[in-house]
């Protein structure tokens, strides 16, 4: 289930960001939106819970303004793997 306020995986440093459109352009999931050519507005992570954590935005950013931050449930995961392996219905 989605969290009430989804974790933001794509942290954009407003000081470093040059508002260049590249992160919008490269995102395979259409998550990052930036009005083309608008040098005043920061890119917006419009659908943070649809992030694949691929880091393509970070890799393409010309000023290293993007950091990928993993949520707690990924880094310190406590799921019992056996619960992913199905229920037995006789």
């Amino acid at each position, binding site marked *: *289930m*989605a969290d009430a306020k989804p974790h933001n995986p794509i942290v954009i440093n407003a000081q470093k960001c040059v508002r260049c459109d590249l992160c*919008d*352009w*490269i*995102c*395979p*999931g*259409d998550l990052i939106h930036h009005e083309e050519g608008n040098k005043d507005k920061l890119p917006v992570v*419009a*659908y943070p*819970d*649809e*992030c*694949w*954590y*691929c*880091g*393509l935005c*970070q*890799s393409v950013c010309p000023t290293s303004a993007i950091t*990928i*931050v*993993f*949520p707690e*449930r*990924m*880094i*310190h*995961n406590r*799921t019992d*793997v*056996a619960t*992913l*392996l*199905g*229920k*037995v*219905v*006789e």
Partner: protein
Amino acid sequence: MDQNWTTLDTDLLVVGGGVAGSMAAIPALEAGLKVVICEKGRVLDHCGSIGCGVDHYLTVMDTGPEWDTPEFLIKHVPELTDGIVDMAVAGRVIREMPRIFRKIESLGVDFRDRKTGDYYRLRSFGLPGTYHINFDGTDFKKHLGERVRKGRATVLMRTMVVQLLTEDNRAYGAIAFNFRSGEWYVIRARSVVLAAGDVNRISRNASGLAFDSWHIPYNTGDAQAMGYTAGAALANMESVEATLTPKGFSCQGLNALVSLGAYFVNRAGERFMFKYDSKGENARRAVIADGVINEYLLGNGPIYLDCRHLPQELLDRMEHTLQVDRYTLPAFYQQKGVNFREELVEISVSELSIRRSGVYFRGSGLAVDVNGETAVEALFAAGDCATVSGGISGAAVLGHIAGEGAVQRVRSTTGALPDPDRQALEAVRARSVAHLGRQDGMPWKEFEDATRQTVTDYVGVRRTEKGLQLALETLRALAKREPTLRADDLHGLMRVHESRNIRQNAEIMAVASLARRETRTGSAHRRLDYPQTDDKNWRKFVLVERGPEGPVVRTLSTERPLSDAFARRAATA
């Protein structure tokens, strides 16, 4: 046509701009044909399946030794696929491997090791030779994309194809929309290649995050669902694939480590993989995943990856290639505070996906003939959505074959393309846009979660007749709710279509799993009520097609090619 439809006429329409789609476009462009590519992403520079570059490429090279010949590998294919394989198509793909490999080199991809200047070939995934070239393929897809761009294909980005246009079992285009601009397209084409990849977001994983998946979560079985609706046959849809991932992050990268000598240990510190296969960690991917699943079910978890015994030089190589498959993997280890050189790394079984069940040359998806053509004339499929698949090289080779097949189809087609029925077009669009702003509707995320939970519980790695029936009931009840799905914006509308495609694929998977009353390839198809592999009765394909009431199943002996089941063959015979 109304002003608010954009109409395009072309020779070839390609759905999906990944490796298979790009490789299909290239021969068509070389033949001077007009090509339109629809792609949900915005670039052609990355692989469709994993979004990045690649670090290994499977090929025979025909360099002299017997093992490096197509015929030698072909001999081993039945055993690699547990007997469920279309040998006609797999045979053609393997025979074409050296030619396509050289072609990709001619596009500028450098497969050679930068230090030695030679190919660094490894044995992995249980293959009977060192067929995997380990290389820095960061720019692999860039070279393919460049060739497509230079060939002046029309590329429609952020555009999703929602329905194929067919007449008399022949494809002549598709309906698509741009989910940024809201522009709707009618694209008429003399041939269509479907190359939209595998099916993800179909079951739960450790993190519980739907989009945290091993392969790209934006591949949602669009081609399989559309092909099915258009009348194409699907096969091997009962085989699911899981891989092993660092726990909490469903990403690729572990197999590369394993092929370099890392191994698995269970809670007791026991290296257990030899219990499941005499090749140990060099077994096929399906066997490796199955071994870990078994250990978890036996209560021997957690399972860990151990790299600590490896020499520094290999660890350096690992560290260097780790981020080729998934750029963020080093950051994950860093934020987690794990150093795989010195510590055990806890691993998990990934979510399930429908791809090729960890097996080379047996894909799960649209059944194709030796030219990559499906049961619907002029409709081709390649890559992970087709019945012969094999990672990047499988996509490249069958993609190119399908492109050449499409060129032949275009050349043998005369006369004008049909005019689509305007009312039917309007109805497709009206049904789609009705999801927008349906305030009382079911959110697509909720719908998808229900599909995932059902698949995880009853269609996953432990199947029974009763469980599968239960799943089908739920999945069919969900289908009835599809018209009420809510999209908040155009992006959400694209996701609604994806969610519907995922559910459709889940239903097809459940139907196929119910039909195959045996267990085959371990957890790829494990029936608790039929726990043995039954070669006497089940050396057969399970084909699924659309019937008046939903999916219907047929079986076909694996002695015969899948195309023997195609209606268009019967019609023209």
